[in-house]
């Protein structure tokens, strides 16, 4: 299951500052050898948080990722995100 690979990547950059720096430096390279599905890779690289949510990425990790990657008004980003995912309900996030 590639959902596991997305969760694993998110956890790594949330916990490890060096990994986070390397990812910011070159996101495509950082993800190159990871077994993400094309839809997942695209959503990660485009910071498409709602799509990641709909794919069942772990919400706790996704929340951490949004915190790391969002610039500016965090409240506004969260509010926009909540509106966009309302229709998805609670997708299965098991791996």
């Amino acid at each position: 299951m590639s959902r596991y690979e997305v969760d694993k990547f998110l956890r790594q950059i949330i916990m490890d500052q060096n990994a986070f720096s390397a990812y910011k430096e070159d996101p495509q390279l950082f993800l190159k050898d990871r077994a993400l599905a094309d839809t997942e890779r695209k959503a990660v690289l485009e910071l498409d948080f709602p799509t990641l949510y709909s794919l069942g990425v772990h919400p706790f990790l996704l929340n951490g990722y949004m915190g790391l990657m969002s610039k500016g008004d965090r409240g506004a980003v969260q509010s926009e995100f909540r509106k966009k995912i309302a229709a998805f309900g609670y997708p299965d996030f098991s791996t």
Partner: protein
Amino acid sequence: VANVVEIIGITHSPNMGRMLSEPNPESAIRKSAEDYERMRVKMAEAKPDVLVVIASDHLNQFFMDNMPAFLIGKAPLAEGPFPHEIRQHGLASYRTRVEVEMAKDMLRLAPDFGVDFSFSDEFRIDHAFTIPLGFIRPEMDLPIIPIFTNVMAPPIPTAKRFYDVGRMIRSIIEALPINARVGVLASGHMATELGGPKNSRYSADPEFDRRMIQLIGEGEAEEVVQEATWDRLLHAGNNTLGFLNFVLLLGVAGAAVPSAVGLHFPEQKAAVPFMAWDVNQKGAAA
């Protein structure tokens, strides 16, 4: 013999420290601070020799590459939280000894009581442990036995299983071949949501929170177990599974009516619960 002398459950919300130290706190926060201080005093007055601490891990120490449902930590030292948690939330550190021999005895006895714990000889404790310990035992002078539960990565054990494991933990403690006064501390929370469609700055489901605390207050453990299904917890808020540690605590308390229980609703934070059972305080356990 080992006796349980006090049983306490409080939240591990990482906002708690900051919230309680605000200069002009709203009433709900002031009352939360008073009640958490009452919980600290209760545990102190019970004079425990050791604390069994039931808490979760937020995919920090344990991840889906190797996910235990219930695990006893038996490394000599428990220390936390994780550096990224300190960076994100400005959390205080906590560091204390683990009562390794007692942890080993619990592991050895557990299968006879119906639970096969995983174990770990190398771990960090995250904010689920350090925040409640910081409130209840700020001196960091008591050894602990950390019991980790999986409330993060599905499939998560059922409420019935959490409750039963709580009952088993009580029996295991009382079967230990040592003299000790044991305090039990559980770390959980009420309806919360993170990274989901509900606003995470408030209780994600006040109705759930009130209902569950009312049932706990009435000693209606079986009703709590019946109502705390996967679907109900998830729809109360996607991070509400942490409530299951309180369900486990109900098992430790043997479905008794608590000595103290309550819930506060700060305006822009998750609900703040507390529950305590005073046990055997006059007994000659030590």
